[in-house]
Each structure stands twice: as structure tokens, then as C-alpha cells.
């Protein structure tokens, strides 16, 4: 099997993150690695840098990982998580400026075709352009 870009879904709510991942798997299949996380370190609404780092490593692919986030703190914490990865992985992870559900489905669809990280990100971010 050829490597495909991995997808990480980061929501303040674990239910939203899991539901989004379920939709991606149903619509795109299992050829793309999808990981998700939601909730703060106490399990309440929020995001956790360590959980995001775990999700990135679980979805890891040599072609890179695209992250989809919901609201502000999820983006800031995802950027922080990327910077705290081992150095050779940092440049292979992007946080997409895209709506979380549609962006995850579009990014995974593009990834399934074997596209590069830049192409996957561009397709997800087209959703925010209009």
C-alpha cells in the first residue's frame, strides 16, 4: 500500500472529534490514517497539547499529517503540539484553515488519491476561500 497523508481531527468536544472521524471513515474508507482527539486534560470541553501530539503520531505518515480544528484554542494548541514534535516531523505537519467536518472529509478524500500534503491542505482550505 502506498503512503497517504494522515488526517488528525482536533475538536473541543471529543464527541464532535469522534463523529467527524466516523464520517471520514465511512465516506473515504480505511486507506487513510485518521486520528482524533477532543477535550481538555481533565476531560472537559477544550483541547490538550499532549493528546494532539499523540493523535499526530498515531496518524503519522512519511507524507505528512494534515490537522483540522474547530475553534481558536484548538488551533493554538495544535500549533504548539506541532512545535513540540521531534524535529524531523515538525515540517511535515500542517494545521488547515478549514471547517472541521467538511475540511476533514475533503482532505481525506484528496489524501486517499495519494496527493501531497500541500495538495491535501489546499483542497481543505478551498472551503474557506469563498
Amino acid at each position: 500500500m502506498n503512503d497517504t497523508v494522515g488526517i488528525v481531527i482536533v475538536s473541543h468536544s471529543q464527541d464532535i472529534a469522534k463523529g467527524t472521524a466516523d464520517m471520514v471513515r465511512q465516506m473515504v474508507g480505511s486507506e487513510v490514517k485518521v486520528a482524533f482527539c477532543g477535550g481538555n486534560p481533565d476531560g472537559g470541553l477544550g483541547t490538550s497539547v499532549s493528546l494532539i501530539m499523540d493523535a499526530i503520531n498515531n496518524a503519522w505518515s512519511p507524507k505528512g499529517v494534515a490537522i483540522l480544528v474547530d475553534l481558536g484554542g484548538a488551533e493554538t494548541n495544535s500549533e504548539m503540539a506541532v512545535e513540540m514534535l521531534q524535529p524531523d516531523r515538525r515540517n511535515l505537519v500542517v494545521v488547515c484553515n478549514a471547517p472541521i467536518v467538511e475540511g476533514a472529509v475533503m482532505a481525506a478524500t484528496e489524501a486517499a488519491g495519494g496527493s501531497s500534503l500541500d495538495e491535501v491542505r489546499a483542497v481543505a482550505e478551498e472551503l474557506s476561500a469563498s
Partner: protein
Amino acid sequence: MSVQPETLKSLVKAAAEQVIASAPELTALDQAIGDGDHGANMKRGFEAVLGKLDSIGAQPLDEALKTIGKTLVMTVGGASGPLYGTFFMAAGDALSQKRGLPEDMAEVFACAVGAVSARGRSQPGEKTMLDVLFPVLETLKAEAGSPDLLDRVRVSASAAVERTAPMQATKGRAAFLGARSVGHVDPGARSSCVLLHAVCDTLEAQQ
């Protein structure tokens, strides 16, 4: 640069305890214009810092600041985690490269504030913690060496918090509220002020 371990511990303890004590106020401010989690998030982060007090106190100041920053990043759980975490980690990095306090305090503070601004892609005037940090940086520069430095910093920070009330938020969750964010002081500005007061009060008590 050397700080006595007991001084470092009392600074960290005071800062953490003051933030934890102000959690209900921070939550109330955040419920007005944010998502209401700032108090709980800061409390969780600084409780984790308190839990490491002995090991932090045993570190050189630059390493201690980095440990505080990483602890906040990993435990706060909201946008304030990376923002405050970046502040302390950048201050530690800057201190590692400088001669040390107090001569370079403004310079170290400037590095930390600049890193927070970059992390949040934000500038002063957008109703954030930067609206306290930048005025305090100016005070540190202008009053360097002054016998009244600690008091000037406290006054500067408190006045800066109040000036966030008429601002309209363009960053963070409060930006969704647009004009409705006007009239409330910013919770991040308030928590920055609490931290700065705790540090100044502790240093003053030790003079």
C-alpha cells in the same frame, strides 16, 4: 544569573496561588465575553506548576521558566496554555542567552512578549493579554533601575487592564461578539495583571 532557590520558590508559589485564588473572577470575566473556561484552565495549569514547586525551585532560573512554560502548555487546555506557556518558555530561552537579571529584565521580558504576540498573531489594541504585557514592557524600559520599579509595574498593569474595557475584541472567542465585547475587561489581561502583581509583591516583601 542566580536566584536563591527559596526566592524562586516563593515567587512561583505566590504567582500560582494568586492565579488560583482569582479563578472565579477570571471565569466571570470570561463568561461575559469568552467561553467561560479561563479561570478553570489557569487554575488547572498553575496547580500543576505548584505540584512541581520543589523541582522548579531547584533549577536555575532559565530552566525553571522553561519548566513552568511546558507545564502550562501541557495542562491548561485552552488557548491560554500555549500563550502563557510561550511567554515563560521564551523568557527562559532569552535568559539562557543573556547575562541575567536585573540589568536585562526588560530585554528578557521583551523576548517573552514578542513570542506571545507571534504565537497569537496578535498586536496590542486587540483586547488581549498583550494589552497588559506591552505597557508593562514600556514601564520596565522607562523605569529600569528606579527604586519605585515594582510599584510602577503594578500601577502600569492595573491601569492597562482597565483600558481593555472599551476595546473591541478582534482575537479569540470574544471576537465573535464584535461590539458586544466592549465594556468588559479582558480575562487574559486580568490574569496577566494578577501574575505581575504576585511577582512584584513577593519581590517587594523580600527587599
